[in-house]
């Protein structure tokens, strides 16, 4: 006879006894003896299919029978069986994982389902997956469209930007009709149109050290579609801290990179780049340009890696930096190793919480406001000087192909890169006003000229874009 201990609330179904003695040589036999003696107990412990309810654990003495031989576990007469519920909870509202697909979904995903590498199991994994896209721009556009189409169940997007005309050359998730709308809303509409089964969470904020952990914690992985260093380091460190893979991509002009960072054994972004480049050294796409198709290629490499991580198939880019050159149409790869000295993911990490990434990357806060250096001149004042016939040189430091897009006729063109070797063309005693597209490069030109002994040099604030706003709207913006 083995003893079965009855939990307090179930005693009413067991003749008010706190324990019963039953015969049986296995756990299964004892349990069936229990429920045949006390039929009312059966529906408390077993479900309609005759299986133990999900919250019920059976212990033989001090051992969970799941780790013994389950129902076939042998029972000796001196043994005690206990019925113990699993109990957990919390204030979060966790969605239970889905275990099936609807008829419509089976039809929609049929080209996935017939491949054994995906199949029903894989498609259900995709449906249960939660992926966070940081940025709904060049990389975010193809990522959002294809991850939604593939059936990733929950996609979060972080973006605070508005669609403008210069985005449409590459950000195919937005249309001409969307110019002026929030990128989040435009991306949401496109993704829901492709696949209404997808849950899309919109975060209309800049990702910061204050909110990153909270936002990322709700997802299985992050796909980084950002275009600046502070955010890249922030996303990397947050992923390392939360142990979430970071599917990385970056683009510039005709070249792109992609890899997977921050997996259990793989390297992180800081293993590759421990320190950010000095501010201004690496131009952004707005400054340097980008082939519109390029983010399509790189974004879809990231989407492929995200889907492979979810499915657990294939060979991921962990430990490999994929390099793509569109002009040569060549893919290459570099080996990446986890750096044991890495401050984020190394053996003795020093970055255990998020820091000030603007400061880390050497970028002063609120750049536009403090960038008003003494001596800067507004475009409308430059126009007034020209109209008065003042004696000064207007110097355009952009590239010749930009000059072809638009120019101020009075300006002399010397691209910033050529300036050091063409200083002899300029008179150090003359008054010079430099301009470029938006005022960044011309500020560097002003510094260079001052260091070379030029005295009366000023920067035209806001570049030719501001000229178009203040002086001549017929000058196209680019």
């Amino acid at each position: 006879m083995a003893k079965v201990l009855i939990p307090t609330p179930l005693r009413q179904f067991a003749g008010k006894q706190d324990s019963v003695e039953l015969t049986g040589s296995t756990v299964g036999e004892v349990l069936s003896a229990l429920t045949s003696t006390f039929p009312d107990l059966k529906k408390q412990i077993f479900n309609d299919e005759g299986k133990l309810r999900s919250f019920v654990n059976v212990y033989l003495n001090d051992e969970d029978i799941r780790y013994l031989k389950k129902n076939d576990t042998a029972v000796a007469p001196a043994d005690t069986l206990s019925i113990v519920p699993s109990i957990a909870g919390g204030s979060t509202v966790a969605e239970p994982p889905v275990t099936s697909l609807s008829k419509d979904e089976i039809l929609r995903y049929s080209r996935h389902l017939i491949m054994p590498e995906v199949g029903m199991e894989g498609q259900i994994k995709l449906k249960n997956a939660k992926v966070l896209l940081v940025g709904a721009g060049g990389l975010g556009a193809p990522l959002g469209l294809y991850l939604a189409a593939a059936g990733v169940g929950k996609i979060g997007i972080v973006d605070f930007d508005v669609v403008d005309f210069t985005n449409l050359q590459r950000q195919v998730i937005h249309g001409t009709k969307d110019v002026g709308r929030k990128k989040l809303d435009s991306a949401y509409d496109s993704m829901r149109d492709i696949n209404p089964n997808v849950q899309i969470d919109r975060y209309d904020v800049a990702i910061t050290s204050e909110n990153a952990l909270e936002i990322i914690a709700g997802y299985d992985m992050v796909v980084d579609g950002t275009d600046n260093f502070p955010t890249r380091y922030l996303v990397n460190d947050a992923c390392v801290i939360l142990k979430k893979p970071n599917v990385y991509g970056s683009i510039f002009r005709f070249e792109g990179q992609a890899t997977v960072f921050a997996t259990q054994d793989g390297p992180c972004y800081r293993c590759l780049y421990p320190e950010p480049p000095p501010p201004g050294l690496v131009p952004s796409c707005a400054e340097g340009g980008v082939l519109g198709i390029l983010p399509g290629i790189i974004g879809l490499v990231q989407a492929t890696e995200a889907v492979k991580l979810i499915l657990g198939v294939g060979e991921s880019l962990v430990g490999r930096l994929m390099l793509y050159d569109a002009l040569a149409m060549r893919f290459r790869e570099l080996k990446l190793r986890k750096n044991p000295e890495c401050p984020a993911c190394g053996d003795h990490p020093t970055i255990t919480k998020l820091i000030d990434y603007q400061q880390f990357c050497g970028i002063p806060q609120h750049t536009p406001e403090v960038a008003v250096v003494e001596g800067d001149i507004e475009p409308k004042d430059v126009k007034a000087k020209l109209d008065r016939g003042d004696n000064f040189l207007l110097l355009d430091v952009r590239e010749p192909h930009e000059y072809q897009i638009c120019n101020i006729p009075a300006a002399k063109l010397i691209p910033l890169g050529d300036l050091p070797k063409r200083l002899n063309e300029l008179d150090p005693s003359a008054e010079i006003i430099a301009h470029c597209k938006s005022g960044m490069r011309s500020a560097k030109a002003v510094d260079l000229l001052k260091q070379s002994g030029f005295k009366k040099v000023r920067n035209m604030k806001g570049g030719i874009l501001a000229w178009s706003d203040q002086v001549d709207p017929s000058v196209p913006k680019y």
Partner: protein
Amino acid sequence: MIRIEPGAWQTMVAHAQSTFPDECCGVMVGKIDGDTKSVTTALALENAYKGKQEDRYEIRPEDLLAADKKARAEGLDLIGIFHSHPDCDAYFSKTDLQNSCPWYSFVVLSIKGGTFDHANSFLPNADQTAAEKEELIWPKS
């Protein structure tokens, strides 16, 4: 109706406040007389949830088994489970429901800014689809 005696209540509130901002958990032990449950002792258990415990808790079945044995040895009954919701109201969340069992009273303590705010007791059904609110009486001091 579930009534919590002062000694037990003190243990529950102290445990919930000491684990703040994380969730706490434990068991309530006492006697059942008809429709009235009296909790005379509360036992704090370790929150075994692996991950951020700000909004999750988990009780190890082994710990529950040991608590049940201890209660039996003292001639008492295991009546319920308690846990806290830090900076959050004392409702029975979906997570609570989906990881509950219908045999016990579930008391939820709302702890706001580190101090006790209010509490509720719930009786979940066997299918883990709904929980009925149960009258809860705790010592007001």
